């Protein structure tokens, strides 16, 4: 019964986290678009994360921050699930969750 309560609360918490991530990302991206129109930035060129925070114009920085907020949302989902399974003492799936985090870390380092 305690496990079901944790599951229900986790569903609500996850919905809140995802919606917050989506809203943050959308606001940053839309602000970046408005800034691009206002400043007359017309360059359609790719940027790396590093360049976005050093050389890129302000509007593109905002958009890249929005993209990073978007990318962080599924990562938060994965971390949230691991916490839920720790609370439920479902160790088998805690290991599964940590394996997914390891693969995501691999993706980040390969990138």
């Amino acid at each position: 019964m305690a496990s079901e309560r944790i599951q229900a609360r986790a569903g609500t918490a996850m919905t809140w986290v995802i919606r917050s991530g989506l809203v943050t990302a959308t606001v940053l991206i839309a602000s970046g678009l408005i800034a691009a129109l206002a400043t007359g930035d017309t360059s359609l060129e790719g940027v790396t994360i590093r360049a976005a925070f050093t050389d890129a114009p302000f509007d593109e920085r905002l958009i890249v921050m929005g993209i990073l907020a978007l990318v962080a949302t599924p990562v938060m989902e994965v971390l949230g699930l691991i916490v839920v399974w720790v609370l439920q003492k479902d160790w088998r799936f805690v290991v599964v969750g940590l394996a997914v985090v390891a693969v995501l870390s691999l993706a980040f380092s390969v990138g």
Partner: protein
Amino acid sequence: MTFDLPTLVELIALGLFAGWLGALVGIGGGVVVVPSLVLLFGVDIRVAVASSLVAVIATSAAAVSVYANSGLTNFRLGMSLEIATALGAIGGSLIAVWIPTAALSVIFGVLLMVTTALLLRAKDRRQTTEPLADPASDGGGWEVSGRLAGGFHDARTGSVVTYQAVRAPLGAAISMGAGVASGMLGVGGGFIKVPAMNLGMRVPIKVAAATSNFMIGVTAVSSVFVYLARGLVEPLLVAPLVVGIVAGALFGTRTSKMVSATMLRRVLAVLLVFVSIEMLARGLGVGLGI
């Protein structure tokens, strides 16, 4: 191509269309965005794939936020399969940045043909590959701790459906293939994962679709890093697409009862045949200008 107001409007419109279509027939995202960017906007296919992956993360997050409380998503199943899928996605994205763009166009053309065949095979919306359940009425679902099992209340039949996933290694192997397709071509890969879970692992279609939506976002994240690091994400190209897709998906969910999904699917299938031929021809160096 430069960024100006008309381009902004066109990109938002493309995103709206892709998001709306995805919500209605379950196939949108990459299948629409990538060829549209390549053929209509003259964007490099790798940049188009990277843009599509960012958009896929947005649509997945929107879908998960709707389904998380219904209990239809089996997170234990999704995370178990995600290990193989995310590894496949990393491999797919590395292949995409390594092989010639012409080869990527040909592979995308073949993928579109497969997608068209799947579209025409689906008898109704409930057999396609994306959000299938009605989160307002279906739900009350649960997962069994320590196992790949669960259940939910099916509003259509009024019954309680329980399930136990079988053949996990088979599901993981197919999911890895879906990950490769996603990372290489910028698609969600739900059209591979949902049948794998449903037919291969005997998971109910509603659970398979909701679980696939959760997985798609995590998979896209694992490949988008590869594109971001190589400067293939163009902020002013991605931004209008994301805004359009999120709005289109919300609009599609609200208009789903006003449009015939069957008719839409047939029109889309015809369109995809032409697009797949053009992508194949372009990859083979004989652009037809369709």
